[in-house]
């Protein structure tokens, strides 16, 4: 095994990718040379040096996906890497899928496990069917792989003294970036909470969510939500969105209130105990729960909150 190219629109991808390479090494595949590519916005060369990357190519953060992919295409032609690696994100996947189309190479997104590796084939696992199943796939090298963020953590870092910096070659494009608006964040870490109260479409207005916040604060927990609450209605910021493509949580207790139980949501909940409150007794949330309460949340929550207040 020779060269690996790590692409990253954000610093996290480098750490994830190096962690993945360690697992590859344990399976008997060694890497001689690592080439890095990242945006000039996120390039902290001091951190990247610690990861053992020999050459780092930078691109302007205002570049479009097709521009970056075509620039990567030039590098792939130059270095012929065996594996092109990144962590799975909307931007990383869009750019690398474009590259894979240019190269006619196989690409696997959101890889959570490396099962086997030979000199020309990797066997990998990824979650499919909205998290209800997993798929084992084999891929011939060279291939493009994006891995689930924070799944692979490097233990030992091989520091390099010299890192060669260069610019990624970019061509013109017919897409123009007009405006970038950062999303609102509260900085909550629902992924670390021991108790999470999840809210869904069963709530009729944003104001009514205060019931859930009161319950969460009485229990010493945090409030999370389903996709429509964050993405569609925007009642809560996206750092509270529980879903396979967003936050995954591992609390002791998850209380799902007014949540129908879409697999995309429930697959992101790994809780010891799951409680569901829903007025529809046929809601699929009940098949995912340990304790179910078939009731109108507007009637049940005030009673539950009162009882907890008295404790």
């Amino acid at each position: 095994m020779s060269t690996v190219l790590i692409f990253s629109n954000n610093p996290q991808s480098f750490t994830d990718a190096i962690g993945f390479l360690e697992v590859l090494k344990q399976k008997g595949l060694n890497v001689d040379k690592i080439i890095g590519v990242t945006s000039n916005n996120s390039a902290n060369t001091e951190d990247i040096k610690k990861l053992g990357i020999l050459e780092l190519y930078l691109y302007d953060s205002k570049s479009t996906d097709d521009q970056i992919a075509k620039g990567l295409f030039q590098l792939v032609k130059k270095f012929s890497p065996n594996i092109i690696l990144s962590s799975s994100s909307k931007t990383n996947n869009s750019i690398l899928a474009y590259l894979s189309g240019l190269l006619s190479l196989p690409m696997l997104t959101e890889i959570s496990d490396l099962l086997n590796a030979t000199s020309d084939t990797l066997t990998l696992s990824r979650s499919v069917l909205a998290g209800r199943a997993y798929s084992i796939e084999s891929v011939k090298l060279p291939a493009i792989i994006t891995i689930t963020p924070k799944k692979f953590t490097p233990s030992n870092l091989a520091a390099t003294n010299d890192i060669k910096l260069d610019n990624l070659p970019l061509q013109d494009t017919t897409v123009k970036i007009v405006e970038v608006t950062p999303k609102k964040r509260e900085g909550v870490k629902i992924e670390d909470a021991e108790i999470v109260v999840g809210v869904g479409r069963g709530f009729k207005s944003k104001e009514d969510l205060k019931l859930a916040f009161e319950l969460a604060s009485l229990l010493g927990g945090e409030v999370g939500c389903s996709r429509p609450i964050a993405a569609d209605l925007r009642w809560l910021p996206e750092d509270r969105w529980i879903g396979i493509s967003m936050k995954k949580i591992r609390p002791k207790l998850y209380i799902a209130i007014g949540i129908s139980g879409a697999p995309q949501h429930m697959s992101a909940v790994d809780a010891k105990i799951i409680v569901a409150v829903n007025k529809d007794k046929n809601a699929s949330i009940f098949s995912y729960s340990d304790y179910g309460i078939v009731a109108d949340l507007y009637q049940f929550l005030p009673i539950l909150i009162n009882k907890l207040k008295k404790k």
Partner: protein
Amino acid sequence: MPNIAAFVKISLDPNMIRTAGDDKIDTVNMQMSISEYDKNALEEAVKLKEKYGGKVIAFTALTWGPIDKKLKDTEVIQREILARGADELYVITSNLILNSSPLYTSILLAQAVKKVGNFDLYITGESSMDIGSSQISSRVASILGLPVITYVRELEYDPQNNLIRATRDLEDSYVKVEAELPVVISVTGEINQARIPTLLQIRRAFSKPVKILTDKDLNIPEQQLLLHKREDLKVIKINRKNIILEGKSLDEIADKLISKLREEGVLKV
């Protein structure tokens, strides 16, 4: 708007998990439906057609076999794609794409659109609900030599300048972009509320053409070394107690819940 190609996948439905034997997903018999976000993509295409004219041609690659069985099983869903407003539907069948590898699916989709005609806009959902690779839009774009705009949650067409203005919904930001046509886009589930076809639309769908495209039609060589193979597809079992707490009053149920949670050791208070 001129002509739009919509890539609409007929997916295994994750709400209808079915296994064969212990834990293997039964892809042969599991219920299928139109992939969730592809409904939004089709809806957006049809809305543009209603406003600016042109045609919406839908393409679906049949990625689960056996081909003959699935062609028959999905007839109603094929009609549904037309009832949702597509003018024509092309169903792509090939052994090469069975088991849903985005590498081959994108090559065949690109071949199919090239064969059918010139399009000004190519549209699909952000990911499919079965395999969820999120690759098709970018891959097809690069094969066709076009730029791509993924995760679009707002879309406008400017007929004067023949360009689109789109807002991408990314993890940390919204990004507004402008692009000349032709371009390939993928849309998020938030871009619109896909319509439920009326009885009239369903009836009309029966007079719209469904055409099958095979390997031969698309000049795909029969034998090819597979670079990407799906070895296995297994269900993740849900092991929950599934106890419904009942009582004479909500008051009683609340008490039961609190005592159960104490027994489980998950209450801090």
